[in-house]
């Protein structure tokens, strides 16, 4: 669904999106990596269980919430990729509590 523009910098940073390796350029956001990976949904909403993907790409809509390197509910569009970063989907609300 999404292809990188041909003139962009080379995709040199490997991250894991839902466990799958994806190559994106240095400086790209985790949300961009999610779109390149082509996931059907990055998360489901906590109350209505509606599917969501990154949308605004500028930190406003919070649709791109993901678990990044083990930390839930991060705005993927506001996080710059790093080699080996793990970007995991969230199904419903995050888990919290003493056993989280």
């Amino acid at each position: 669904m999404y292809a990188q523009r041909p003139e962009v910098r080379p995709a040199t940073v490997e991250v894991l999106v839902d466990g799958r390796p994806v190559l994106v350029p240095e400086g790209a956001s985790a949300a961009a990596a999610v779109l390149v990976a082509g996931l059907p949904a990055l998360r489901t909403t906590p109350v209505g269980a509606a599917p969501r993907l990154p949308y605004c790409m500028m930190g406003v809509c919070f649709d791109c919430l993901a678990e990044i390197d083990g930390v839930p509910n991060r705005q993927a569009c506001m996080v710059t990729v790093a080699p080996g970063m793990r970007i995991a989907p969230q199904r419903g609300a995050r888990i919290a509590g003493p056993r989280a």
Partner: protein
Amino acid sequence: MVLPAQPPSPAQDRHDAIVIGGGLVGAAIAYGLAEQGLDTLLLDEGDVAHRASRGNFGLVWVQSKGLGAPHYQRWSRQSAAAWPALAAALATRTGLDTALEQPGGLHLCLSEEEFSARAARMERMRAEAGNLGFEYRMLDRSEVAERLPGIGPAVVGASWTPYDGHAGALTLLRALHAAFRDLGGTYRPNAAVARIDAAPHDFRVTASGMTARAPRLVLAAGLGNAVLAPMVGLAAPVRPERGQILVTERARPVLPVPTVNVRQTAEGSLLIGESKEDAGFDAQTQIPSVMRGMARRAVLAMPWIAELNIVRAWSALRVMSADGLPIYDRSERFPGAFTANCHSGVTLAAAHAQMLAPMIAAGALAPELLPFSAERFGHVRTAA
């Protein structure tokens, strides 16, 4: 506000009752009056109002209500007991789920001093309750841990009563309004009351260009009651007490019972509250030291809360009397006029809808409500 092109005709203008104030107190009473079959008009000031109901924490809370005032404990308990019927009636009529849960509630104590002071308070509550009884337990640390996961080392114990619970305050407000309108009630938003012309059993209210008339008038305008009550020969000495609330990101259900300062909503957010400040009418500012204190106490009680992000915070103004108890009055000078003032619009919603509204419809407050008169502050009712 969209004003009608022509003023309403006198026939349309008349109602059986007018309620001033569209928050939780006014909406609950208006809904209750409509259930009594009264043609009721509900006037709501608008977004310039202080809107305490929009900032409510959402506890249906009994255990700390009415030390030295057993009538307040009894009234709160009656309301909590009537809440399931209210929630069911609202759900049936509106399809809205107010998310009422009444699993009992905990007041956590974070030091031996807090624990012994709490124990003394609860024992006094029981003594004052008399025949009504007051079921409570002081739980030690291990008993608290059985009811609440992941308590911190600072938790010494807790008081527990079976009467406590919580509900969605905003959904309740929406459901009361929806049920009121479904029963044929008339709701007028952006209707700031400019004038009340009072006569016994005959009240004419002018609000934002409209005038309405009814033999019954209920003032339920929160802090606005202080100004309105003298217009009907009553006093409503209420002042603002600011409370702040912190809201975390949503989490899967993790808190099986509400505590007095932390609860988890049906949608998953944790609300952290119970601050008290005298800040006049300022509901805009939030004081970092107060927010820090609230967060610290929550994290001392349940350290895992520190992992959660705070996504929202707000403050609102409680409607407080000098002794913290509600004020209910019926005007002697202008029979038919009543005031209702309290800071527990959620807890007391069932009492207001199911007990207070029928009294107002019948024209007199039951004896159990007489101790709530503002006369207790030395305000003498104006004789006719």
